[in-house]
């Protein structure tokens, strides 16, 4: 496969500017059985998140007497990618589940629920680069929908380097052919970015580039954060209307 030109006339393949997100749609409370849930579309990514808990943890010897255990399962549907994938966790899913779990370990007030489990399940129905970020963004809303106390909202996005240029929220071609990819998540509290909760990178960048990446990511997450907040607002307004 020949690498296509990814930047043409200062625009990206899908016509976006370098610092432009793909279209995003967020809806809270989309599942009945789960305690909290959220559906997100980020470009072609279509992702569901559900939260169950706090609930009893079995077997008992896994319980932590001082806090809740957070579990996170990132899973891709067999039909979510070009080539049908065999169901079940692969190494990539296991790693994403681990680092995403750690995001929420830092953010959930887990000391309030000793001996219990809080389960976060993310199902990727369609994937197109950035599904881990989409999952985290949805999970963050689902947690609030479930009424679980958190220190703030977590918002995630990736920044890539393609054809020497830093671009926000890369889609599949940019991820695949790009020189570097950096997914990141921030804790946002009272509308302000407070700290980094997820950080990974692969590719090749200078220290200077990385600093610019972080700035670009911060711009991106603030936009996503507003959409997360809106989704939560819409949900609670509906409830008040109904109440």
């Amino acid at each position, binding site marked *: 496969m020949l690498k296509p030109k990814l930047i043409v006339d200062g625009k990206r393949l899908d016509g976006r500017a370098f610092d432009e997100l793909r279209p995003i749609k967020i809806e809270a409370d989309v*599942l*009945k*059985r*789960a305690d909290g849930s959220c559906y997100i579309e980020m470009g*072609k990514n*279509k992702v*569901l*998140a*559900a939260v*169950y808990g706090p*609930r009893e943890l079995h077997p008992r010897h896994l319980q932590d007497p001082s806090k809740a255990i957070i579990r996170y*399962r990132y*899973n891709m*549907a*067999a*039909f*979510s*990618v*070009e*080539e*049908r994938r065999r*169901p*079940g*966790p692969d190494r990539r899913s296991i790693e994403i589940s681990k680092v995403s779990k750690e995001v929420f370990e830092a953010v959930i007030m887990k000391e309030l629920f000793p001996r219990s489990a809080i*389960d976060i*399940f*993310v*199902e990727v*129905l*369609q*994937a*197109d680069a950035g599904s881990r970020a989409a999952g985290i963004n949805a999970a963050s809303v689902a947690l609030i929908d479930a009424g679980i106390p958190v220190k703030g909202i977590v918002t995630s996005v990736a920044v890539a380097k393609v054809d020497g240029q830093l671009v926000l929220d890369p889609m599949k071609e940019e991820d695949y052919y790009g020189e570097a990819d950096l997914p990141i998540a921030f804790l946002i509290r009272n509308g302000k970015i407070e700290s980094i909760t997820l950080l990974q990178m692969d590719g090749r960048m200078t220290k200077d580039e990385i600093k610019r990446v972080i700035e670009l990511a911060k711009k991106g997450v603030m936009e996503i954060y507003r959409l997360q907040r809106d989704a939560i607002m819409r949900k609670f307004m509906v409830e008040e209307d109904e109440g």
Partner: protein
Amino acid sequence: MKAEDILSEIKKDYVLAKLKDGERIDGRKFDEFRKIEIHSGIIQKAEGSALVKLGNTQVVVGIKMQPGEPFPDTPDKGVIITNAELVPLASPTFEPGPPDEHSVELARVVDRGIRESEAIDLEKLCIEPGKKVWIIFIDIHAVDDDGNLMDASSIATISALLNTKVPASRFGLGEDFKLPIRDLPISVTSLIVGNKYLVDPSKDELSVGENTLTITTDKNDNIVAIQKSGGYMLSEELFYELLDVSARCARKIREDYLKIII
């Protein structure tokens, strides 16, 4: 006794009390389905797909196709492989891991409906007899289990197949073409309570015990699959009654939601 067990006990009593009065807890008739919504083609990366909502129950089915080897005993026919994932996102009782008896049964009963009604013209999916045919992967992904995943999956599967394009061009095998569908099998599942039945049971209704009978019929009202599920005794009379009820319900679903000339 755990809180959830007590809640389940209360629901059960309520369902049974209503039933005595000849009613269902949500006011439906005994042979009435919940509201059905079909969103076709929602997974663009799949060859075909559908999200089906049956009341609050939600199932996504995606269809993938690729060339592969035929079975030795049907060298000139395409191959259907059906799989169901009851992911833990969909219910507090589902656990991660390989398919358990519930997802295996779900996949196999849906598969039988498609296969036995000969809904897909498999002869038209032969590329080179004995060597290469189209493999159809039907992946059922339950996302919200508010009861009767079976029928939601059955409707989602036929809906997904109806919008499936065979990706011939991607594999250098000529132009893409619509998957040749020639029947519309629909399963109808009833909850059995003593000598009564409740079609399309909700999760709350199932709290009385998960005893069901699934009957799948084709467009000519032939029965193409039956599955009794649950540890209960079924009377012959009720079974015969449900053969009629199921055919009638399936016909209605076909007419209301799958108005497609075949």
